[in-house]
């Protein structure tokens, strides 16, 4: 791919062809998440929040504030009970399959960005099917299909064909691909996908503009409304997340939870999921902890999400080490990936993936290893919890 010069498009203005929804949800989230004074929350606010069955926005903020840091143990205890009430001891397993890493966006922090000279690849149908057979043989029944953003190299019909192939091997198909219009989501739903995840990365528009220099991803509201368009297209569930550490992680976590809550109120039949990926070292973000979000703060976000949205599935990323993930699933996370390869191809045991990976994973455990770890922790691994209808 040739270099794409930063086009300095206004990130708040839709590009031609982008579907516009009539909604003020974005304004609500931006207004409510701007200028939060995290220092004003005190221990009493945190204790009050921990006593509530249904949290207000103020309670949610208190749990995300620095004042909650000494209360992690109490938060964990309440979150564990809430998780148990709604999910029992079930932990859902899945794995991602990266179909292609061609990308036309220039996101300064990402290993796939269009400026980076990496090995680019796109799996063909035979390769997709081989990868899926290998993954299905591990016993997994849910797959998450990913691509970079390249409507020319991984267009909607390519993704749709991958969904159709996935239907042969998996009961649950999720997508983490570039935002698209509702009719395109409807097409992918007909092809077999039921779930769509889009990370807003950061809900701070100023920071977002500095990090996303070119490509369709630069357009902030189009990304924000992706989940709503996906539900409009018939998808069963949607996932939200911010890449913690790109901006103020507390603000981003609050905005993520609020975004999910508002959409859930508007579409109460939808299944809602949250992820809490933390910025980890990449080519562009060197250093031990580039985003400055500690493990304790990551846990704080996870627990606050659980208490604010007790019905939401919460995924813990392979960016985190195995021992952390094993604990997080006992405290509020309900979904975990296993047997992960974030390069293009590579599930078939080749020495190298066909295409380079997006980030380094810290938990490379196989499906069996994660499965046994869950059982050893008194948890019940669940391979699928959905029917495509």
């Amino acid at each position, binding site marked *: 791919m040739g270099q794409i010069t930063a086009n300095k498009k206004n990130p708040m203005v839709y590009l031609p062809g982008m579907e516009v929804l009539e909604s003020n949800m974005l304004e609500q989230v931006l207004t409510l998440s701007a200028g939060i004074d995290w220092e004003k929350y005190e221990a009493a606010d945190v204790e009050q929040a921990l006593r509530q069955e249904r949290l207000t926005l103020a309670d949610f903020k208190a749990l995300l504030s620095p004042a909650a840091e000494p209360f992690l143990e109490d938060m964990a205890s309440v979150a564990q009970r809430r998780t148990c009430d709604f999910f*029992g001891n079930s932990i859902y397993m899945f794995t991602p399959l990266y179909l292609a890493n061609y990308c036309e966006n220039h996101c300064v922090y990402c290993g796939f960005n269009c400026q980076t000279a990496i090995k680019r690849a796109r799996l063909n149908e035979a390769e997709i099917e081989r990868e899926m057979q290998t993954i299905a043989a591990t*016993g997994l029944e849910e797959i998450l299909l990913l691509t970079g953003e390249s409507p020319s190299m991984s267009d909607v019909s390519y993704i749709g064909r991958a969904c159709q192939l996935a239907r042969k091997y998996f009961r649950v198909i999720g997508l983490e691909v570039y935002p698209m219009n509702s009719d395109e989501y409807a097409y992918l739903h007909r092809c077999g996908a039921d779930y769509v995840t889009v990370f807003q990365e950061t809900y701070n528009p100023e920071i977002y503009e500095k990090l996303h220099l070119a490509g369709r991803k630069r357009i902030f509201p189009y990304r924000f409304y992706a989940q709503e368009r996906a539900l409009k297209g018939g998808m069963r569930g949607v996932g939200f997340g911010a890449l913690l550490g790109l901006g103020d992680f507390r603000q981003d976590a609050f905005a993520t939870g609020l975004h999910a809550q508002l959409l859930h109120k508007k579409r*109460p039949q*939808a299944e809602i999921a949250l992820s809490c990926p933390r910025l980890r070292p990449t080519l562009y973000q060197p250093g031990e902890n580039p985003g400055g979000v500690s493990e304790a703060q990551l846990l704080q976000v996870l627990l606050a999400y659980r208490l604010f949205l007790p*019905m939401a599935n919460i995924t813990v990323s392979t960016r985190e080490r195995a021992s952390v993930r094993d604990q997080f699933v006992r405290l509020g996370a309900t979904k975990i990936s296993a047997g992960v390869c974030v390069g293009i191809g590579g599930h078939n045991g080749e020495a190298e993936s066909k295409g380079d990976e997006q980030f380094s994973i810290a938990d490379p455990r196989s499906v069996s290893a994660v499965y046994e770890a869950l059982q050893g922790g008194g948890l019940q691994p669940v*391979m*699928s919890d959905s029917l495509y209808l």
Partner: protein
Amino acid sequence: MNTEKSSRDMMRLGNKEFSSRFILGSGKYSLDLITAAVRQGGAEMITLALRRANAGGKENILDYLPPGITILPNTSGARDAQEAVRIARLARAMGCGDFIKVEVIADTRFLLPDNRETVKATELLAAEGFVVLPYMYPDLQTARELVDAGAAAVMPLGAPIGSNKGLCTKEFIQLLIDEIELPVIVDAGIGRPSQACEAMEMGAAAVMVNTAIATATDVPAMAGAFRAAVLAGRSAYLAKLGRVLDRGAAASSPLTGFLHTEGV
């Protein structure tokens, strides 16, 4: 005292009779505990979410169910009547029999049922020969519609699924018990054996419990506690029947017998 084995007190649903009035939900278990829970609880019927069942899969709940247990598949995940019907047909095709619990959820935040779609699904499925047990919000009018639709029972919630809050809807459940001819099976929200006992004392035909047992520290023991509670409640309900009959007959008037029958 009536025992659960008494043939006078069997619960009839469809073409089957059950001596146990305790139905086990299965959504939240460790699979290795289900067998113990069934045995200790004495359940003769256990629910099964089709979205979890996968014959031949790595962990299939069907492999953990003791023989002789009636499987009650549920349509959890259905967003409308059509999806409920599709799931029911899938269940039947998998060999799960003709019993189906209709569960159409309008709101995944609180897992509250969509009564209107539930009635539609019930009518469609009853016409296809299913024995339909619909999970519903306890509304008397909806219950009447479910009777007309061909339901085999009605399953009003006591409180939101997973809340363990007990019989929040007690007054409305009592209305159903008093006014609807079908068995009333209290489902969802029962958090303690005492609440199951209370539901049975009110005259519920049976109770369904999942979360309260699955999340107990000692799952088999809690299943046993619920078994005892359901028996106690049912026995108490049957023991009250004598007073109900007397109230209806009013053969004597010990309080007002002093009044002259004519004249002054």
